[in-house]
C-alpha cells in the first residue's frame, strides 16, 4: 500500500526533532537520531512513490473524520509524486549537510529547535502534497508556514532575521487568508471540502482562480508577491534556505496546478495572466539578483526568476488547454514540472555551496570573497556545476526543462491564428532570462571563486567538512543524471501531465521523443570537452613557473583593483534602472590629485521597500489617529457605542 509508506515518511519527518527536545543541549542533542529518522523517512517515502508509480494507478486512503466538510482523504498520484521525489532527496541530503554546517556543539541553543522545525517542515509538506481534503490541506499548509517561520528566525538574536521572519509571517498569512476563502468557495461549488476529481468542475470559477493565484502566488514568490522571499532565504541557515527555496515555495505551484486541474474548461485569460506574471517574475527576478551583494539574497532572487520560468511553462499549458493544443499542454507542463524538480536540485546545491562559503569566511558579502577556488576546490566545483545548471546550459538538467518549455511554446509557431501566436513572445523573454542568468552566475562564480582574495577572511578560507561535501555531491550527481539521461523521467512527466488534464494519449509519445537525442548531445559534449581538456592539461604540464598576471602597464596591481560584484553588475543594473531604482552614494572623483573617496550602491526591493512599507506605515499612522478619536477612554462615549450597536442590530434583524 504505497500511501501507507508515505504516511510513515510524513510521521518520521515530523517527529524527527522530538527526541532531541528531550535531550540535553550540551550533548549531541539527538542530531544523529534525527538525521537517521529523516533518512528513514526519505527511504520509506521514495519507496512508496516508486511503488505507486509502478502500479500505474493512484493509491488512496480514506477514513471518517469528526471535522466537518468531508472525510480524511489521502492520495498519491503522479502530480504529487513529481513534488515528493525532490523533497525526499533534498531533505535527506540537507540533514546530512546540517551535521557539518550547524553542529550541536557550536549552536547549543538553536540546534535542537532547528532540527525540530526542519523535520516538521518536511512532514507537513508531505501531508499537504498527499491531502485530498481542504481542511487537511490547510492544516499541512499552516504547519509548513509556521515551521518555515521558526527556521527563518533560527538566529533570533539577529534583528535582520527577526524582520525577515515577521515579513514572511505577514505574507504567508495573507496568502492563507486567500486560501481559506478559495476553499470555502470551492466547497460551496462541490458541496464538500473534499477535492473534486480532475476535470469535473464545470463552473466558471473566476473568483476561485484569482484567490488561488493570490494565495499560492505568495508562497511561490511570483512577482510582485515575492516580498518575503529575499529576506527570508537570506536569514535562514543555509540548509534551511535550501529546502525553503528549493522545495517549500514549489507547494505554491503545486496548489495552483491542483486547483486548475479541477476545472473542465480553462478560460484563456487564466493562462495569459500566469504567462505574463511568469515573464515579469523571470526578468525582474534575475535583474534584482544581478544587483545584489549578498550571496544568499542573490540566490533568493534567482528563485523568483525560476518560479517565473515555471510559470511560463504552466501558463503555456493552461493556454494549451484553452485553445486545445495538446502538444503545448504536454510540453509546457512537462517542462514546468521538470523545472520544479530541477530547481529543487540545483538551487539546493547552490545554497549548500553558499553555506560552505559562509562556513569558510563568515560573511555573506560577495565583495569580500575572491580566489576561493584554490581554498575550497570541491565546494567551488559543486557551485560551478549548480551555476551551469541554473543557467539552463547543456549538459545539465536545467537545459532539459527549459528546452521542453521552449519546445512547447514553439508549438504555436506554424499556422496559428493571431491571439494564439502571441504566445511566441514568451520565447525571446525566456532567452533573455537565460542570458541574464548567465551574466549573473558568471559574476557570482567569477567574483567569489576566481581571481585574488579581497579580504583576510577569504585569504584564510578552508574547505567544508565531509558531510557538507557529500550533501553537495549527491545533488550535483542528480543534476547531471537528469541532464544526461533525460528519458529516465519522461514516463513520470507524461503521466503527471495526464493526471492534470486528460489530453489525447496519442499526442504523448511524439513530442518527448527528441529527449533521447538531447541526452546523446550531452554525452558528446561532455566527452569532447573531457578529451580536449585532457590534452591541454597534458600539454601544459611542462609549462614554466607561473608569473603574476600582466598588469597592463601598471606596476603594482592589487586585489582591490579586480572587478567586484557591484562593478560587474553595474552595466546591467543601469540598463534596468527603470525597474530597480538602485541607490548610489558617492564615487565622484574630483581634481587632479583626488583624495580617497567612498562609493556604495544598494538596491532595495521595489515592491517591499518602496511601495508596501511606506504605504503600510502611512495606513498605520492613519489608523492610530482614528483610534485616538474613537477610543478615548470616556465611559459615556463607550455606552453610546453600545446603544448604537444595539439599535443597529435591532433594526437590521427585526422584520
Amino acid at each position, binding site marked *: 500500500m504505497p500511501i501507507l509508506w508515505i504516511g510513515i515518511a510524513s510521521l518520521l519527518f515530523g517527529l524527527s526533532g522530538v527526541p532531541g527536545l528531550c535531550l540535553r543541549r550540551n550533548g549531541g542533542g539527538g542530531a544523529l537520531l534525527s538525521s537517521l529518522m529523516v533518512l528513514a523517512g526519505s527511504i520509506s517515502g521514495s519507496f512508496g512513490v516508486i511503488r505507486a508509480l509502478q502500479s500505474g494507478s493512484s493509491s488512496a486512503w480514506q477514513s471518517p473524520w469528526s471535522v466537518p466538510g468531508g472525510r480524511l482523504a489521502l492520495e498519491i498520484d503522479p502530480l504529487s509524486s513529481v513534488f515528493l521525489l525532490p523533497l525526499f532527496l533534498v531533505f535527506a541530503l540537507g540533514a546530512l549537510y546540517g551535521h557539518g554546517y550547524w553542529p550541536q556543539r557550536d549552536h547549543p541553543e538553536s540546534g535542537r529547535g532547528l532540527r525540530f522545525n526542519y523535520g516538521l517542515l518536511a512532514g507537513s509538506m508531505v501531508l499537504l502534497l498527499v491531502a485530498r481534503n481542504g481542511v487537511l490541506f490547510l492544516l499541512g499548509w499552516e504547519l509548513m508556514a509556521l515551521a518555515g517561520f521558526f527556521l527563518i528566525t533560527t538566529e533570533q538574536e539577529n534583528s535582520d532575521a527577526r524582520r525577515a521572519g515577521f515579513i514572511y509571517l505577514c505574507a504567508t498569512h495573507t496568502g492563507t487568508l486567500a486560501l481559506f476563502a478559495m476553499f470555502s468557495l470551492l466547497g460551496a461549488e462541490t458541496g464538500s471540502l473534499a477535492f473534486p476529481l480532475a476535470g469535473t468542475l464545470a463552473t466558471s470559477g473566476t473568483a476561485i482562480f484569482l484567490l488561488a493565484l493570490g494565495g499560492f502566488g505568495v508562497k511561490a514568490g511570483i512577482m510582485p508577491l515575492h516580498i518575503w522571499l529575499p529576506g527570508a532565504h537570506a536569514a535562514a541557515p543555509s540548509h534551511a534556505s535550501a529546502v525553503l527555496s528549493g522545495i517549500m515555495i514549489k507547494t505554491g505551484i503545486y496548489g495552483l496546478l491542483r486547483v486548475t486541474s479541477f476545472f473542465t474548461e480553462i478560460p484563456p485569460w487564466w493562462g495569459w495572466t500566469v504567462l505574463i506574471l511568469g515573464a515579469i517574475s523571470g526578468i525582474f527576478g534575475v535583474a534584482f539578483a544581478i544587483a545584489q551583494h549578498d550571496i544568499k539574497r542573490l540566490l533568493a532572487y534567482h528563485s523568483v526568476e525560476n518560479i517565473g520560468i515555471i510559470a511560463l511553462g504552466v501558463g503555456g499549458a493552461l493556454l494549451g488547454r484553452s485553445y486545445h493544443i495538446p502538444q503545448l499542454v504536454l510540453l509546457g507542463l512537462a517542462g514546468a514540472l521538470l523545472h520544479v524538480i530541477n530547481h529543487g536540485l540545483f538551487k539546493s546545491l547552490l545554497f549548500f555551496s553558499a553555506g560552505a562559503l559562509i562556513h569558510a569566511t563568515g560573511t555573506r558579502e560577495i565583495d569580500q570573497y575572491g*580566489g576561493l577556488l584554490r581554498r575550497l576546490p570541491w565546494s567551488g566545483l559543486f557551485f560551478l556545476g549548480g*551555476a*551551469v545548471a541554473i*543557467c539552463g*546550459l*547543456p549538459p545539465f538538467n536545467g*537545459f532539459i526543462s*527549459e*528546452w521542453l518549455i*521552449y*519546445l512547447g511554446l*514553439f508549438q504555436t*509557431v*506554424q499556422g496559428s491564428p*493571431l491571439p494564439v501566436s502571441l504566445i*511566441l513572445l514568451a520565447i*525571446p*523573454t*525566456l*532567452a*533573455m532570462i*537565460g*542570458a541574464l542568468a*548567465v*551574466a549573473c552566475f*558568471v*559574476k557570482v*562564480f*567569477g567574483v567569489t571563486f*576566481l*581571481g*585574488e582574495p579581497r579580504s583576510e577572511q577569504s585569504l584564510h578560507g578552508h574547505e567544508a567538512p565531509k558531510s557538507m561535501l557529500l550533501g553537495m555531491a549527491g545533488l550535483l550527481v542528480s543534476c547531471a543524471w537528469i541532464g544526461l539521461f533525460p528519458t529516465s523521467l519522461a514516463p513520470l512527466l507524461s503521466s503527471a501531465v495526464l493526471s492534470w488534464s486528460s489530453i489525447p494519449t496519442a499526442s504523448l509519445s511524439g513530442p518527448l521523443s*527528441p529527449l533521447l537525442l*538531447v541526452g546523446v*548531445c550531452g554525452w558528446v*559534449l561532455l566527452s*569532447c570537452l573531457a578529451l*580536449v*581538456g585532457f590534452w*591541454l*592539461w597534458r*600539454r*601544459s604540464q*611542462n*609549462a*614554466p613557473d*607561473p*608569473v*603574476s*598576471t*600582466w*598588469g*597592463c602597464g601598471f606596476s603594482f*596591481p592589487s586585489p582591490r583593483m*579586480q*572587478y567586484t560584484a557591484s562593478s*560587474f553588475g*553595474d*552595466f*546591467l543594473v543601469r540598463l534596468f534602472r527603470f525597474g530597480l531604482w538602485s541607490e548610489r552614494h558617492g564615487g565622484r572623483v574630483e581634481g587632479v590629485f583626488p583624495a580617497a573617496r567612498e562609493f556604495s550602491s544598494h538596491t532595495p526591493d521595489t515592491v517591499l521597500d518602496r511601495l508596501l512599507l511606506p504605504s503600510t506605515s502611512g495606513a498605520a499612522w492613519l489608523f492610530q489617529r482614528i483610534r485616538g478619536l474613537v477610543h478615548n477612554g470616556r465611559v459615556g462615549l463607550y455606552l453610546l457605542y453600545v446603544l448604537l450597536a444595539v439599535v443597529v442590530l435591532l433594526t437590521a434583524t427585526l422584520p
Partner: protein
Amino acid sequence: MLLPLLLHLLLLLFFAPLMPGVITKTKAWFAGRVGAPLLQPYWDLLRLWKKGFVFSRTTTWVFRAGPVVGLVIPILASLLIPFGAMPAPFSFSGDLILFVYLFGLARFFTAAAALDTGSSFEGMGAVREVTFSCLAEPTVLFALIVLARLSDGLALQNLFGRHLAQAWLTMSAPLGLVVVCLLIVMLVENSRIPFDDPNTHLELTMIHEVMVLDHSGPALGMILYGSALKLMVMGALVVRLTLPFDTGMLWLDLLIFLGGELLLAILIGVIESIMARLRMPRIPQMLIGTTLLSVFALVLTLR
C-alpha cells in the same frame, strides 16, 4: 551518415581560418596596403601550436577550461546546421535551442576564464561580453521564430531548408529583416567593428580581445581557431539565408556555400573599413534597435 559528417567537419576545420585572412586582406586593400598573406591565420595557428605556455599564478583550472570550451562548442554547433545545401549531420526537432544554448555555455566559460586572471581589464571585457549578449539573445530567438513560421519543422535543418528560395518571393520583407538582424548579431558575437575592434591598441575599449589577454601558446591558438570556427558557423546561417540554392550537384552546392562565406568575409572587411567603432554606451541602443527590427519581421509574418 559517416561520410557527410566527415565532409562537414573537414570543411569547417580547414576552411574556417581563411575567413579572418580574407577580412584582413580586404581591410588592407581598402587602406591601400599590401597586407598579410591570405593564409597568414594558418601560419599563426601553426606557430602558436609549437609554442609553450605562460600561466599567471592567480589562475586555476577554470582558466584552461575557457579555451577548451571555446574550441569544442563551435565544432559541435556546426553539426546542427546545414552548410549551404548540404544537410546537417545531426538534426532533431528543437535543436535550434541547443544551438543557441551551446554558445551560451561557451560564453559562460570564456567570461569565467577572464575573471580567473584577477585583472581588472579582463573583468571589464567579461562584463561587456555577457551584457551585450543579453541584448542580442532575444534578437536571435525572434529571427528563429520568423524562420520557423515560414518553415514546417523545428529543426535548424528545416528552418534553413529548401523552401527558402520560394519564401523569398512571397515573404521577402521579413526575410530581409532577419538577414540584417542575423548579420548584426554575427558582428556582435564575433567581436567585429562597429561593436568591437580586435586591433585597437587600448585594452579599455575592447570587448572580446581583452578577455583573452593572458592566454598564451596553444591555448591562445585554440581561442583564435575557435573564433574563426564560430565566424564560419554563424556565417553559414547568413549565407544559407541569402543564397538558398539547391542545385542537386554536390560540387556546385559546395562552391555556392564556400563562395558565399568568402563574400561574407569581404563584406565584413568592407564594413570594418568604412565604419568606426561605436562608443560603448551606443552599443546597447543599437542592439535594442536590432531587437525591434526582428519584432517587426515577426509582426510581418503574423498578419
